[in-house]
């Protein structure tokens, strides 16, 4: 019984709470159907008009935002457009910049906010001055007028002003900036450690022994070895990795006294390659065997280069072909010709698009980063080992962020994913 009374009370309270709400809703409906006819009455201007310098730009942009006119959704003759006017004096002549259709709210804001970026950095178009050019540092005034479907216009909104200025840091790129600093620190730390002689472990890379075996085979057959450094420039990382492997190959060939042919397609690559081979021969104690003619410059053009290298393979009957560096469409052209001469072929490149062809046509392929790792593994140079370590730890960081990001995003939180969102 006691319980029942409690229930009754609660029911009463609920009813009391519900009633006024219903009542209000009814009242609103009535007032709407009772609406005054607004036809012929000019609309109100927009509210909360603001102008500010456009962030992260080169200093020729102003952002104007405003909220809808109260008359935007009125039943009769609602607002259909907002016309934006600009002047360089507060009370001067205003010229129309743009009309924005009603309802085109900015996606950058929650709720109903309009945004227009007035931006133009061209002082002249052809030889005529550009009327829309915004001068850096100069103050511009803006006002807005609304228009209804029947063409009625409102009063102008109160003028607002802003001066465009150039920015000195792009805040949208903060995550890049932090990533760069962290990575810079990692690379430098590990290079220093490697230089100090700290042992940095690198796992054996499958196929390194394939390089030595291939050289051995050329020796047995008494035929030359071909080493192609690709069609990249001297400063491309794949070419740099190529030099290191070339040094190893050249040293072995000097010991076995077989020539290594290195046709190149860039003058600078040629001089580095010559230097590398000369040093390797000296290290092997056979500087007398070094012949500059074996490392010729062929031509800088891609297909003529391929035609010439294919010719070398066919005519010199090379026993082993190495392709280590940056390759484009020539990858398969070279590797298939090499296969027809019966040469053993070992390739390595960091170009994902060319890897399928090397995988299919050569005997062994170093995939992407394996090329860098192989060169570090073979040379044990601190300058190569250090960054490889740093790359490994950066990868670990990436795995960490991807796992955390994926888990949080799957649970419906996007804050980790948003770290990597950047405005460009």
């Amino acid at each position, binding site marked *: 019984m006691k319980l029942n009374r409690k229930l009754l009370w609660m029911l009463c309270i609920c009813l009391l709470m519900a009633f006024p709400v219903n009542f209000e809703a009814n009242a609103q409906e009535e007032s709407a159907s009772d609406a005054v006819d607004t036809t012929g009455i000019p609309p109100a201007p927009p509210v909360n008009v603001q102008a500010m310098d456009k962030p992260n730009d080169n200093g020729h942009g102003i952002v104007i935002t405003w909220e809808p006119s109260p008359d935007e959704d009125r039943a009769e003759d609602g607002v259909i457009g907002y016309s934006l006017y600009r002047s360089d004096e507060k009370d001067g002549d205003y010229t129309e910049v743009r009309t924005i*259709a009603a309802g085109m709210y900015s*996606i950058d804001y929650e709720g109903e906010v309009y945004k227009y970026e007035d931006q133009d950095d061209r002082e002249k178009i052809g030889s005529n001055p550009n009327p829309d050019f915004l001068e850096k540092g100069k103050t511009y005034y803006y006002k807005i007028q609304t228009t209804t479907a029947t063409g009625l216009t409102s009063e102008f909104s109160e003028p607002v002003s802003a001066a465009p200025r150039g920015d000195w840091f792009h805040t949208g790129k903060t995550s890049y900036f932090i990533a760069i600093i962290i990575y810079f620190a990692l690379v430098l730390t590990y290079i220093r450690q490697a230089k100090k002689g700290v042992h940095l472990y690198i796992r054996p890379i499958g196929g390194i022994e394939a390089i030595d075996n291939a050289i051995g085979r050329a020796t047995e057959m008494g035929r030359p070895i071909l080493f192609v450094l690709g069609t990249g420039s001297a400063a491309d990382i794949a070419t740099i990795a190529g030099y290191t492997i070339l040094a190893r190959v050249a040293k072995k060939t000097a010991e076995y006294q077989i020539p290594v042919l290195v046709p190149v397609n860039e003058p600078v690559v040629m001089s580095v390659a010559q230097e590398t081979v000369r040093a390797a021969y000296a290290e092997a104690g056979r500087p007398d065997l070094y012949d500059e003619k074996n490392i010729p410059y062929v031509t800088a053009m891609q297909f003529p280069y391929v035609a010439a290298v294919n010719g070398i393979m066919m005519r010199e009957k090379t026993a082993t072909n190495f392709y280590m560096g940056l390759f484009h469409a020539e990858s398969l052209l070279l590797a298939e010709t090499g296969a027809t001469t019966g040469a053993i072929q070992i390739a390595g490149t960091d170009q994902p698009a060319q890897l399928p062809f090397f995988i299919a046509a050569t005997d062994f392929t170093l995939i992407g980063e394996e090329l860098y790792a192989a060169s570090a593994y073979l040379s044990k140079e601190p300058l190569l080992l250090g960054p490889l370590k740093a790359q490994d730890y950066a990868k670990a960081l990436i795995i960490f962020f991807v796992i955390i990001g994926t888990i949080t995003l799957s649970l419906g939180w996007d804050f980790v994913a948003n770290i990597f969102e950047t405005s460009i």
Partner: protein
Amino acid sequence: MAFYDNMIDIDRRWIYLVLALAVMIPAIIPFTVPVAVTPEVNDIFQFVDTLEAGDYMFLGIDYDPSSMAELHPMCRAIMAHCFSKDINLIMCSLSQNGQGMAEQIIDEISARYNKKSGEDYCFLGYKPYFALVILTMGLNFRVTYPNDVYGVSLDEMPVMDGIRNYNDCAGVIGFESGNIADAWIAYANGRYDTPVALGVTGVMAANYYPYLQTGQLFGLMPGMKGAAEYETLFKQRLERLPEKDPSEDERMVARESMAYQTTSHIVILFFIIISNIGFFLSRKHEKKII
């Protein structure tokens, strides 16, 4: 030497010869291969096909001359399809080198279907800053393009009478060889909710499939094969029409080239199969000896 040893040791020159013959066959004995139509291409076709005469479509002819081989057939087929159904077209060309090429194809197809600029279609031409152009066209075409490419004011054109922006068009189909494709998705669809479909080069295709999944694109035509699929559907449509159509001599460029692709792919797959059979037989035999 057992026959299976021959199977794994065919001289490469035989392979070259057979492939060369395979590529020549369709040139000597022309034939067309049935093209399996993928849903993403079919969606575009059905979209256009359900429109009524007098409806509007927007075409973005935004590719460079270097990707003409793949994108020209697509553009040609869709434009012909629209004109054959008396759909009005509004077109732009947002790639710097593409306008002349776009003009060529418009002249060709419009002449075949007897369509006139200003009455049945409007070619807006090239304007720089493609992202801004795509954005402002969502407000009104007249903002960036007061005139069409021939200098005629949009206000004086019967075809543009009462047509303001994408809302007045059924949808947008872009033919893209670069990052303009992203702008159509982000602005025309993302900002204005316009239905967008794209024809892209074969190399780009893989990157745009995800947008299909999310519904940001209502269709996608990838490379030569996509073009061939559309041509197939269009051809079927033409055959179903009762009256004789001026488009009977419509050339199905992409479909024709699929014949070469099919014969040569058959050859390559055939040799792969041969080599694997030979490989298994010889290995089996080796085991027996041991």
